């Protein structure tokens, strides 16, 4: 909450300017929004573009790299498997060349050959000699398979009928019921007959070879045959002799790498190569996420830096925008206040000149009425021939009284019209207060407002600008009249303090000021009466006037009970060591 408060521009707390009171000559919110958006765009835009560019390029590169790596591995392992099979084939071919049928048909000799093979090449489990009918003539090895007939076995048929002399089988169970595979070589005999030398190979060798590839968590390497039957154990893709559930593309010259989504929903990178001259296909596969792990880690770091950067940039931009726009607002408010004051002064000057002109023009005819009526009264008084008539005397007195009232009005008008220039003169406070109240006494009578004036005897005549003092007092008494109900009270109390200052307290028992407004009542444009035409300038202007006169205005108020405005003015202007400071906030701080 407090963090949001820090980010929130304080000028937003100010009421929205409406058509009745244009507070600023521009739309602050729009400027703020535009500034923040524009700066954010030009600073964050390139950053985001760079991040996106880097993201796509490094992703494509990494993918390319892992495909290449996979291809190399598949190529390497396929070569090793192929070499392994070639080695065994060559060994068997050599035995056939070096030994005659009769030699091989000797069980002791065959056992020696097996022993020698196991010792030199390794991986041989047993050896069998099979005649053209498919009967096993000799067998050396751990199983009891001598005399078995393989005529109906698939592999035997293929060897007997096949064109190729060398045959490598898939993994199968056979008579021994253990997964194994064989290498069989057909050897022709004179007279059109033939025999077959068959060797059973240890599948453990394959497993060991492929297990070297299974160093990674999700990497799997195994052999399948061309029909998709699994030949060596896998991690999760099925056991030996199961059907694999992945697509098998046709043979190509080079190892193939492709991606496929497996049944668990993970994307697999699959490397595949057909082992030449064998029924096997080598398959190496690994989850893409594991392969891309390094890139993924980098991606999170880059994203982290990106978002942290964006956050910091936005934070700074908003702060700077708030700061600058608050300054602009503050300065604009000051300028507008000055302009308003000038406008106000100019208006007052026009009214003053008009009033002075009217008063001046009226005073001469009034003087004539006064003199004529005066003469009539004199005649009644001094001349016997104009017999004294009480009724006529009464009428003349009434005329004279009215003239006196008119003269009072013109005198006050003239007095108020003098408010324009700063003219420091010695002023009698009582007279000023009487002048001010002179304008309001009729309203006070109509509304039965009880006005009391208490100017202490020790309050001396003092030096100040009479017009400005009048303006201050008229404004404050007017406000008080607006605040009080009919039959309310208004007290004006003036006291002298330390022979230095004069304090004038204007106390009313009106509606008072709510605590949340009291700090801001002297702020320019702060008004609770905007709907009824208040400009929010009255108190602000007289606050400024009091400062000009070297004094100050303070306020105390209790909502519902009334307010007291205290005007303090120096007896001699410029005597105060420290001139009072402008304590208005000039700020859009939160309303209390």
């Amino acid at each position, binding site marked *: 909450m407090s963090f949001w408060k820090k980010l929130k521009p304080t000028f937003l707390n100010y009421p929205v300017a409406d058509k009745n009171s244009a507070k600023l000559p521009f739309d602050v919110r729009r400027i703020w929004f535009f500034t923040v958006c524009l700066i954010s765009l030009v600073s964050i835009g390139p950053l985001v573009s760079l991040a996106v560019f880097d993201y796509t390029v490094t992703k494509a590169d990494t993918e390319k790299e892992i495909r290449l790596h996979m291809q190399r591995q598949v190529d390497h392992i396929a070569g090793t498997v192929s070499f392994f099979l070639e080695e065994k084939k060559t060994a068997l071919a050599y035995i056939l060349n070096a030994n005659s049928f009769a030699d091989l048909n000797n069980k002791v000799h065959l056992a020696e050959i097996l022993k020698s093979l196991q010792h030199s090449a390794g991986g041989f489990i047993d050896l069998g000699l099979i005649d053209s009918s498919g009967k096993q003539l000799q067998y050396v090895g751990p199983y009891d398979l001598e005399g078995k007939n393989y005529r109906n076995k698939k592999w035997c048929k293929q060897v007997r009928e096949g064109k190729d002399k060398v045959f490598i089988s898939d993994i199968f169970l056979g008579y021994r019921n253990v997964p194994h595979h064989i290498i069989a070589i057909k050897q022709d005999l004179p007279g059109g007959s033939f025999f077959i030398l068959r060797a059973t190979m240890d599948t453990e060798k394959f497993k060991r070879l492929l297990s070297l590839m299974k160093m990674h968590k999700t990497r799997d390497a195994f052999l399948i045959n061309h029909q998709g039957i699994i030949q060596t154990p896998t991690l999760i893709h099925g056991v030996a002799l199961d059907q694999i559930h992945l697509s098998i593309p046709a043979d190509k010259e080079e190892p193939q790498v492709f991606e496929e989504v497996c049944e668990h929903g993970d994307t697999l990178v699959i490397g595949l190569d057909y082992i030449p001259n064998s029924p096997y296909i080598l398959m190496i596969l690994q989850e893409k996420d594991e392969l891309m792990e390094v890139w993924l880690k980098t991606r999170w770091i880059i994203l982290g830096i990106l978002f942290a950067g964006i956050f910091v940039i936005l934070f700074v931009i908003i702060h700077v925008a708030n700061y600058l726009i608050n300054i602009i607002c503050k300065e604009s408010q000051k300028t507008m206040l000055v302009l308003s004051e000038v406008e106000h002064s100019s208006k007052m000057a026009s009214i003053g000149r008009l009033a*002075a002109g009217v*008063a*001046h023009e009226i*005073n*001469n005819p*009034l*003087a*004539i*009425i*006064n*003199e*004529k009526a*005066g*003469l009539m009264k*004199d*005649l009644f*008084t*001094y*001349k016997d021939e104009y017999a004294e008539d009480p009724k006529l005397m009464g009428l003349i007195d009434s005329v004279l009284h009215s*003239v*006196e009232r008119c*003269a009072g009005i013109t*005198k006050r008008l*003239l*007095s108020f019209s*003098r408010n324009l220039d700063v003219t420091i003169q010695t002023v009698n406070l009582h007279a000023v207060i009487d002048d001010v109240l002179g304008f309001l006494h009729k309203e006070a009578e109509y509304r039965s407002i009880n006005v009391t004036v208490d100017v202490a005897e020790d309050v001396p005549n003092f030096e100040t600008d009479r017009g400005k003092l009048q303006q201050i007092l008229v404004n404050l008494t007017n406000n008080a009249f607006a605040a009080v109900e009919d039959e309310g009270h208004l007290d004006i109390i003036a006291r002298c303090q330390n022979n230095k200052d004069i304090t004038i307290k204007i106390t009313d028992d009106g509606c008072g000021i709510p605590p949340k407004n009291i700090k801001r009542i002297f702020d320019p444009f702060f008004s609770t009466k905007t709907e009824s035409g208040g400009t929010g300038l009255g108190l602000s202007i007289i606050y400024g006037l009091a400062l000009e006169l070297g004094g100050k205005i303070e306020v105390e108020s209790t909502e519902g009970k009334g307010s007291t405005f205290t005007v303090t003015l120096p007896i001699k202007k410029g005597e105060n060591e420290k001139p009072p400071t402008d304590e208005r906030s000039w700020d859009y701080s939160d309303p209390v």
Partner: protein
Amino acid sequence: MKILLVDDEKDIVSTLAERLALRGIEAAWVTSGEEALQILETEKFDLAILDVKMPVMNGLELQKKMNERHKDLKCLFLTSRGAEEALEPGAYLAGKENYLSKPIKIDVLIKKMEEALKQ
């Protein structure tokens, strides 16, 4: 005590002269500065009451011209502006007590006249 009243408003000065006469004060009246200077050639006055604002020659100019020849002639001024209003440079210096705002009260005028003559 002989008084000279000068004001461009004939109704004011003539009536005022009559009222003063009723109170035993001899008063002559004229309606311009020139006439005032003329009458001063032939008659002697103790006090002149001058309107400040008059066409051709205003009250203050008239006072200056009158004092050139008649140094001991005292003057009071009538103004249709407020008594505190300084109309012309120097008028304020002449002292507020010499000024009377229109419309005037006859008693106040007589009191001021007596004060002026005592000085």
